């Protein structure tokens, strides 16, 4: 019983961060039908930005988000205006050109990090890095709890923005149907720029928070990219709640395998890749899509 609670608590805490980093990918995909392969590079750059703010200015990693979020929002908008916008828009699914372009951006970002910070492994140490608290009888590190709290807060703010503001409604409208949104007077180009900025800012803030928990190098982020991708595939691209649920499913699976089997850690990463491939093959429309289809079928059966 205790073990189950341990797995549940750890999964919930990990899921907060996973949801934040996945939402960055989801909003860009939703609005532009582009898979942002540079996501991993942005995560990594966010971690290094926090490292620099921490070591040069002595800024607390969580306080550094105040700088990181606006800076990377601007960076995302810039990426959109200089590159993404120039690509021919594909009508149906995401185009391979956008994928390869952003792959190129990722490589350049990686090289930038090697040039500025070298390839040495870095980590951020604070007063509370090694401290822990007891939650529901489970001992968890303070950084983990802090990361969860900040992630949860940012997801709540995001949800409010998406529901209550014009920008949020426009983002959802373009996600659902770009042409219809444009007919209704939404400036899809401007919304795309904003969405790319928001996605980049979310990815960078997730990177900043990851830096308080893990050591990192310029190569950092690849496994998190695949995790994020796995989550949005599980979750579908539509809702924040869906992304959170997908994040929880992945975290649960990882913690379950970590807690109950003796699989080496390096193989655990392979788990999310396997889940990703299985999820892509089994539910091309995501778990949420599969779920809503199932409920619809159920309702139809009830009526008949």
């Amino acid at each position: 019983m205790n073990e189950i609670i341990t797995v549940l608590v750890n999964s919930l805490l990990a899921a907060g961060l996973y949801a934040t980093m996945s939402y960055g990918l989801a909003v860009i995909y939703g609005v532009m039908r582009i898979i942002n392969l540079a996501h991993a590079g942005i995560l990594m750059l966010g971690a290094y930005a926090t490292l620099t703010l921490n070591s040069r200015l002595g800024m607390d990693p969580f306080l550094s988000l105040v700088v990181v979020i606006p800076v990377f929002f601007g960076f995302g908008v810039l990426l959109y205006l200089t590159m993404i916008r120039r690509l021919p828009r594909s009508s149906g699914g995401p185009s391979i050109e956008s994928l390869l372009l952003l792959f190129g951006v990722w490589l350049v970002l990686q090289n930038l990090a090697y040039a500025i910070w070298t390839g040495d492994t870095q980590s951020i140490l604070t007063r509370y890095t090694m401290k822990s608290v007891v939650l529901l009888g489970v001992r968890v590190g303070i950084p983990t709890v802090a990361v969860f709290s900040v992630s949860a807060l940012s997801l709540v703010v995001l949800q409010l923005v998406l529901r209550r503001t014009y920008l949020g409604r426009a983002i959802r409208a373009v996600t659902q149907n770009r042409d219809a949104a444009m007919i209704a007077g939404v400036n899809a180009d401007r919304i795309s720029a904003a969405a790319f900025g928001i996605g980049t800012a979310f990815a960078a803030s997730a990177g900043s928070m990851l830096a308080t928990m893990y050591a990192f190098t310029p190569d950092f982020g690849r496994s998190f990219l695949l995790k994020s991708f796995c989550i949005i595939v599980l979750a579908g691209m539509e809702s924040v709640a869906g992304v959170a649920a997908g994040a929880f499913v992945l975290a649960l699976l990882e913690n379950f395998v970590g807690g109950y089997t003796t699989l080496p850690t390096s193989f655990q990463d392979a788990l999310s890749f396997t889940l990703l491939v299985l999820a892509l093959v089994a539910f091309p429309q995501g778990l949420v899509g599969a779920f809503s289809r199932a409920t619809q079928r159920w309702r139809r059966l009830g009526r008949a």
Partner: protein
Amino acid sequence: MKTRGVFAAAALVLLLAAPRFLERGTLNDIWNVAFAVILASAWNLLGGFAGQVSIGYSAFIGIGAYTTVLLSLAGWHPYATLPVSAFLSAAFSVIVGLPTFRLRGPYFTIATIGVSEAVRVVAAGVAFTGGSSGLRMPAGSFDFQRDYSAMVVLAVLVVALAAWIQASPFGQALRAIRQDIDAAEALGVHSTKYKVLVHALSAALVALAGSLFAINFQYISPNSVFDFRLSLSIVLMPIVGGLGTVAGPVLGALLFGYLQIKLLSSPALRDSYLFLYGGMLIAVMLFEPRGLLGLYRRVRGRITRSFSRPVPDAG
């Protein structure tokens, strides 16, 4: 078609005669370029002709190289291992392809990143790959003259095969899949069957190159055959050269072969290869998605147009 055959035969004769009048260093460079040509042209069969971009091709190089080294250590003649490595690689490609080819375009690409990560992690973790210390070929299995000839013959054969496929009904089916998979299906092209077939073919060719790589280098490790730079350049060569053409990957391989040699000799360049590769990818995608070949055609078109009387554009 006929002139092309003559051209290929001439290239083959010239390359095979090269050891008589060229130095060892130059031959090594030619060997490297031939290796690159095989990888680029074989990848292009799936990525270019059929439009399915896979980032997981280092797995096939690894399968080829390890099959050859392990069987040679068991007493086989190195060249007798080639059919086995081609077969194993093709079999692995089918196992990977059957589930992943249900995905389209970029989704397929992402799945291949997952597969290649899994392969890399497993290869570093299992015992028979020799771990990080790697494996060495048995002594006395090295003969540069022979290995050089094998590599250039394979390179010319792969390019000829690509040209033949492009002109064949098989190639037309692949092109249809790239242009519009739904339309291709509606016209009776069994897209999954064709994708699995061409994937297996290109995987087998890449594995052969991996085997020849192992025979010439005499030493392999998960880091050398699953190298990120290698799997990166496999994708970049055809894209930079000209995706979905026969000459494009060859052009890209020549450029990358040259870059590789420059990279190895200059530490400053070696540290910025990601910058170089990433920048090229960005530039190609933004300015000329058809690569160097597309650029050449555009420039040539402009020049001939400026020299000739204006005629109605025939498209």
